[in-house]
Structure formats: C-alpha cells, structure tokens
C-alpha cells in the first residue's frame, strides 16, 4: 500500500498522543488512589459510590445520635437508681418510726431526715442534663415537679422523644416524669385500706391482699365496730354484708379481698377498703411525713399513726417497684442501644469495604500498567526519531 509521508508523522504522533493520554489517566489514578476519576469512567460504580457515601454518612450520624442517647439513658438510669435508694432509706425510717419504743425526740429527728430526703428526691426528679434540659419533663422545658399549697404539681407532659439510631430504628429518650414518679397505684396495687379519721381505739389495719381474683370487684367496703368485740361489714351503700366477733389479728375476707385488723378498736371505729388509686412518690412521702407528725399520746392516735405508716410503707414498696420497673426498661433500652451500636459499627465497616472495592485503585495493577504505558510511549518516541531520519533526499 502507498503511504503518504504525512501518514508516517500522523501515525507516530497519534500513537504518542494516545499513549500520553492513557499515561496521564493512570498517573491521575495513582496520584489520587481513586479508580474512578470521572463518573463516566464507570457510571454504575460512580452512582454506587454516591449511594454508599450517603449510607456511610448516615451510619456515622446514627452513631452520633446513639452517643447522645446513651449519655441521656445513663443519666436517667443513674437518677432513677438514686431515687430508689432514697425510697429504700425512707422505708427503713418508716419501719423505725413504727417501733413503739422510739422516743418522741428521735421521731422528730426522723421527720427532719425525711424532709431532707424528700428534697433530694425532688432534686432528682428535676434533674437537668448537660444542656440544661429537665430529663423528666417530657416535651416541656420547665422543672417538672414543684410544690404549692396543695402539694406536688407535675408541669411536664407525657412526651417521650424518640431518637433515630439506625435505619428505621428509633429508641426512646428519657421517660416523662408522669410515668416515672407518678401513676403509682397505692395500697397493695389493687386496693387500699385506711382507718376512719374519727377512730378512737388503737386498732390498726394491715395492707391486705387479693385472695380471689374472680371475686374482686374493686368496690368499697367498711368494717365498723359495734363495740371492741363485735363488728359488722358494710358495702358502699351502707348495707350490712356480714356481722361477726372480732379477735385481734383476725382476717376479714370480702369480695376477694383479705385484710387483718390488730389492736383494740373502740365502739364506732371504722376501717375502709377501697380500690387502689394512682398516686405519686411525693404524695406518698408527704403522707408519711404527716403520719410522723401525729402525736401518740392517745390510743386513737396510735392506731391512726400505725395504720398510716403501714400504708405508707406499702405505698413506698409500690413506688420502689414502679421505679425498678422504669429502671429495667431503661436498662433494656441501653442493651438495645448497645446492640444497635454494634450493628452500626459493622455496617460502617461493610460500607467502607464496599466503597473501597468500587472506587479504590489496585495499586499493583496500576503501577504495572503505568510501566507498560511508559514503555509504550518510549518505544513510540524512539520509532518516531528513527523514522524521521528516513528520507531518500538524504542520499541525493
């Protein structure tokens, strides 16, 4: 085939340009470590890299969300734990106070101590986190618990924030105070017993229990003493359900409820049974403080006080159960959070591996390619140099 002289130059230059452009591409890859320099190099890979990049940033956001949640849950758990300790101390105090050998003076000291414990509990219930937010106020940003002349008030709401800790995985932030410190059913959790305020004897009533679930109606009943030995059992409408002879410590059973009365009742003394009501830790402790203040110079007062303290102790038990329940729920959330943190960390590594597989350069391959291309370019250059000298005119 005929060859035009311009073709010899053209072909050499073209081959050198080709080699150079490949070389510069390989060089850019080696310099950045990225296999994909432009999305067009690998459109599918480039889109995947974008998607994975977002996934990676998301996973990192989830871990930062998780860290925030973790510190908040720790704070809640600690605060609830401290509150439980307070209640346990108060319970011990109540048992001490119920001991008849205790003097009036030591009872006064107990009362001071109790007031202090109530203050500490209030401080715990109004705990603020590092950012100054009250952890038990739900969605509100006010101190959740405060006292006024009518007793304790809840200023928060029922809100519980959820935080995003994984793809479509949310976990609750701290519980609202209304669920932690409030909503505690008094008595034994089913029904409560209390002496009538006008009682004059020193008899007191125990906590009682539900012995027959099927018969339990939650209705109100009263036990009225005709004299210190005879009683009658009345229902809410005042109708006599039962009459009998009283012996100290004897059990009364009505509508599935069983309860015992001890001590010596006076004629006309009454004891009431009613369905449990929702109360809160502060009211429980306030009632205990009120009981501490009852002077025990009269038998009637002794009975009132013993019943009241007994009631408080059972209410404190209910409150402790309630708080332990909350604490274990927080604990369960912390475990779930830890699991999710592990999952996120695993996902993070997996995404990075995928990303690296798609976009990272295989250096060994690239360097050998680079050398090959360099050799190619050098060869093209040397061929050009040699061809250039070939001309018949040199021999004329």
């Amino acid at each position: 085939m005929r060859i035009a002289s311009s073709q010899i130059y053209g072909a050499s230059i073209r081959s050198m340009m080709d080699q150079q452009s490949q070389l510069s591409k390989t060089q850019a890859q080696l310099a950045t470590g990225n296999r994909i320099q432009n999305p067009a190099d690998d459109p599918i890979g480039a889109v995947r890299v974008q998607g994975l990049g977002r996934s990676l940033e998301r996973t990192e956001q989830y871990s930062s969300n998780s860290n925030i949640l973790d510190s908040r849950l720790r704070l809640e758990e600690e605060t609830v734990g401290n509150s439980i300790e307070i209640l346990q101390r108060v319970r011990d105090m109540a048992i001490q106070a119920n001991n008849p050998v205790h003097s009036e003076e030591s009872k006064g000291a107990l009362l001071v101590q109790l007031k202090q414990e109530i203050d500490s509990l209030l401080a715990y219930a109004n705990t603020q986190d590092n950012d100054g937010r009250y952890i038990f106020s739900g969605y509100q940003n006010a101190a959740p618990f405060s006292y006024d002349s009518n007793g304790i008030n809840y200023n928060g709401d029922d809100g519980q924030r959820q935080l995003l800790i994984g793809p479509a995985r949310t976990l609750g932030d701290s519980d609202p105070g209304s669920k932690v410190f409030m909503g505690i059913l008094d008595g034994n959790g089913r029904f409560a017993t209390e002496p009538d305020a006008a009682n004059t004897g020193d008899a007191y009533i125990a906590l009682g229990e539900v012995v027959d679930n099927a018969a339990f109606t939650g209705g109100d009943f009263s036990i009225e003493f005709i004299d210190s030995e005879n009683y009658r059992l009345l229902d809410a409408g005042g109708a006599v359900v039962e009459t009998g002879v009283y012996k100290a410590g004897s059990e009364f059973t009505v509508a599935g409820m069983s309860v015992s009365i001890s001590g010596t009742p006076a004629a006309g003394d009454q004891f009431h049974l009613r369905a449990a009501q929702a109360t809160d830790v502060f009211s429980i402790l306030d009632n205990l403080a009120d009981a501490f203040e009852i002077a025990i110079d009269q038998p009637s007062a002794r009975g009132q006080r013993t019943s009241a303290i007994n009631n408080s102790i059972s209410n404190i038990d209910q409150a402790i159960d309630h708080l332990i329940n909350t604490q274990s729920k927080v604990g369960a959330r912390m475990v779930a959070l830890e699991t999710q943190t592990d999952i996120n960390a695993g996902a993070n590594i997996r995404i990075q591996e995928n990303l690296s597989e798609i976009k990272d350069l295989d250096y060994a391959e690239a360097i050998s390619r680079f050398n090959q291309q360099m050799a190619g370019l050098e060869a093209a250059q040397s061929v050009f140099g040699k061809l250039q000298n070939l001309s018949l005119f040199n021999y004329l």
Partner: protein
Amino acid sequence: MADLLSNALSSLVSNQRALATTSHNIANAGTEGYSRQEVSFSAQNGTSIGGLTIGSGVKVSEIRRMYDQFAISQLRAATAASSQLEVQHDLATQLDNNLADPDLGLTAFLSQFYNSIQDVANEPASLSARQLFLAEAQTLGNRFNDVSAQIDSLDAEISERVDSAVAEINDLTSQIADINKLLSESSAVVGGGNSDLLDQRDQAILKLSALVNISSAEQDDGSINIFIGRGDALVLGGNSTELSTIRSAEDPARREIVLANNTGFDLTDSLNGGSLGGALSFQREIIDVTRNELGRIAVSVATALNDQNNAGLDLYGQRGQDIFSIAGPRVSQPSSNTGGAALTATITDTTALTAQDIELRFNGASWQAFNQQSGAQITGFTGSGTVADPFVIDGVSISVSGAANAGDRFYIKPTVDAAGSFSVVMTDPSRIAAAAATRSEAVLSNTGSAKISETLVVDPSNPNLMDPVSISFIDATTYQINGAGSFAYTSGNPIVINGNQVTINGIPNAGDSFNIAANTGANGDNRNAMAMAATEDLKNLVGGTQSINDAVGALVGKVAVYTRSTEVNLQAQENLKYLASERQASVSGVNLDEEAANLIRYQQAYSAAAQAISTANDLFQSLMGAFR
C-alpha cells in the same frame, strides 16, 4: 536529425513539466487537503516516411489529480459523526463532573442537610442545632442554584456554539459557491489545471461536514450542490443560501436555525451530525432533561419539607411555615397566538411530576396536551380547565382564563425554574417546627393498664386538628369522645379524631381517660423533626418509585452513562475517521521518497534528452566538418 532534435526537445519540455509537477507535490507535501498530481506521458504520433513510421517524441498528456471519490465521501461521513460526538463528549464531561463530583455533587450536600435535621431531632430545643439546620439548608439551596447556573451556562455555551457554527457554515458555503462559479467558468480547460481548486472545494466540504451532516450532488458543469436537513439547498451552483439564527418562540433563551430567505421555517430539529448537530442534540436530550430532572428533585425536597414543617409546631408554639421557596411552572406562549387566553399552572402532586414539558393546544373546541420532548399526545388528563376544576396533567394543575382561538398553543415547563430559584425563606431558627402539632396524655388518676400512643398527625390540614379531645372509658370496652357517643374499644386499633391518630393498648378501667391536646410548650418534642428526616427516604418521586437520593443517583447515572457512551463511540468514530483519512491519504497524499525517486527519474530523462540534443549537435558538427 531534425527528428532527433525535435524528439529530444519534446522530452526536455515534457520532463521539465514533470519536474515542475514533482516540485509542486514536494512543495505541497504538508498542505492540508492537497491531492498529489501525477504526470502521464504519451508518445506523439510518428510520421510515416516510405512506409516506415518514425516516432516523433513525447508529450504530457495529462496531469492527473490523484483521488478516490469513495474515500472522500467516507471521510466526510466519519468527520461529521466524530465531530458530533466530540462536542457531545466535551459538553457531557463538563456536566458530568459538575453533577457527580464527590465534594461538589448534590449528594454530599443533601447528605449534610438531612444529617442536620437529625441533629435538630436529637436536640429540638437547641438553637445551635436549628441554626446549623438553616445553614445547611442554605448551602443546599446554593448548591441547587450553582448546578442550575452551570447548566444554564452550558446552555448558553451551546447557543454560542450554534451561532458560531452557523457563521462558519455560511462562510464555507459561500466559498464552495465561489469555487463552483470558478470551476464552471473554466470547465472548458482540460487536464489538471483545476486540481488545486477541486482540492480547496473538497477541503471546504470536509470542514462543512465537521459542522453538520450534508448531502452533495455533483453537476455536469463540475459544480457541486450542497443540501442539509431534509433537503434544503445551501449551495446551488454558484449561489449559496445563508443560514441564520433567531430567538425561539418557545424559549427566548434558545436559538432557532432558519434559512435567511425563509425565516418562518424552523430547520433546527432537522439538523444532525457535525458539531452543530451534536450541540443541538445535547441541548435537546441532556440539557433540557437534566434541568427538569434537577428541578423535580428540588421541588420534591422543598415540598416535602415545607409540608412537614407546616404540619408541626415551632418554638413559639405556632404552626410551622415554609422553609423553602421555589418557583412554580413556567408558562409561555408564542407570539403567533391570537386569542386572549392566559394559563396558570401550579404543581399539586410531586409524585406524578415528570421531567418532561407540556404543550397545550386549543383546536377550537377543546384543549389537547402533548409531551413537548417526544411530541406524543397526553391522553386521559382530568379536569375542565377552570380554577375550581383545573386540568391535572402529570401532577401539574392548569387553569385557563380568557378565550383561546383555534391554533393557540401554550408551553408549560413545570420544573425548569425550580433548581435555580430554590431558596431558604426561613430566617428564624425558632420557626423550625420540630414538635408535632398535638400530643396525647393519660389522665394521672387512671388506674387501668391501658396506655395511649403518641399522636400521629395524619391530616395536618384538619381545621380542628389542635382542638382538645378527651377519650373517656365508661367501661373496659366502651369509650366516649368528649363525653358523648359510645364507641367500641379494641386494644391496639387506631383511633382517628380531627386528623390525629392514636392507638390505645391494654385494659382500661371505667373512668380512665386520655386526652389529645395542642402540643403547647413542647420545645423538647422532636416528632415532626423525625418526620422531616424521614422525608429523605420517602418514595415521593416518579410515581412513588424513587426517593430523593434515588432520583439524584438516577440523574447522575444518566449523565454519566451518556458521557461514557459518547466517549466510547467517539473513540470508535475517531478510529473510523482515522482509517478513512489513511485511505484517502494513501491515494492522495504525497510520499516524499516517491517524489525524490521521480525527481531523479525525470532529471535523468531530462539529462538524457539534453544528451540527445548534444548528439544532434555533434552530428550536425560532423556534417559541417565534412564540408570544411
């Protein structure tokens, strides 16, 4: 002897011509488009003397232009194709890098933006998290604006390319017409005299092919007629027709290409190939679609977040407002419309939105809708075109006011301005509605085990959404709403009241009650912020099949695939062009070694002829000496 002298002389002259041609070839070895010339000798007819014919020397019968018409046509076609792809690849690479750069692409900004929503959700009362969210929103907005501006500048670059290509085409066609004229005037001249003119014309046609696909027809008088598009003549013999660009009626930023002597007829869509065809097709296939697609993503982001923010409560306890502002559909009409109708279009359903533009035509009786890109008719749209009952086409609601005349048309570009106008209108971080509009609560004295879920706002536009509602149980299976009615209770079944949905689980006691109320003072609530964060994953685009990130990925992928395919095709086409030019060069190109050999050959023939003259001289001298 006289024969010897005249024969030698004819050889001298012929070889001189041959040497001149060779030197012409050598001189033009580097001239672009030059076809080498070759001298043909032929023997002159001899003279008969006494039954013998004695040769009477040589003559140059022809100086041939060495070319192969087929190779030339192939080169033209390959040039048109490769310069089209070159322009497309060049433009696509710019767009590709813009859209998909890991640091500058939309994905990175969307990612930071959605993360900042989660930061607000973590700490809804924190002003710094809210401030960061607004800053990220602003950055995202700027990025939408930037990408849109880059598309616009690419669009403007294309228009400039179109203008300059049209100017070049006009220049080349007038050159070709001039050469046609010269050729037809000198067509009587035989031989190689026109070779260089032909080369120039071929070169001009090749350059023209690099600009746009043409077809040509050679005439008997040697002139060539040039046609473009659907057969519109640019060159007829010695006359050329100019092209010119005018503003498009559809889009004033766009050019329409017309014949200068017939401006009413738009040639634009019929032009293909070459750098002009490449630029035009890029504009049609990529620029328009990319801008619309980007706009659709912007509309979807803005609408989803505005709607969600409007559903919640801000730190002031008020219903949220719009975070973003975004331009609505662009409606335009050509000046040829004669009626007085005006159209108003708004986007009402981002899910149904497409990246295509809509054309509405009035045929005198009814309105017809067409897809402007494909030209296909859109059937099955609803509405009557009034404000109360607008046409709903692809998620766009269109109402018509005034009367249209038959033949009037309107162009509706739903998302063309969206990305460029995407801006943050919220300036006060407290206005971010992180809290839900309502909340539920259990009354503190409840004794049953029933628990109420948080409220879920299912209908933010319900006028009674934030009215207080109480759900009170008269027994374990029956409840009342606001103290009235009697509704059967099933644990776990959702209850929807005034646009709020709640679920009650467990066993309530008689007298237990639950309230739904306005979420006042709830600056620690993050439910609405969580809902905003969740918009990232909602499949709100393309008929509910794509999320925002899917759509961005699809857009980037589309441009990348286009770039990739132009790159691959360009390489193939460049190779074809190279082969065609090799083939052409192998016929027409000058080989200097060949010319050197010819030089020696003709020089030797010349010397030999001179020697023959010298011999003739010797003979003559011998003869003269005989008489001395």
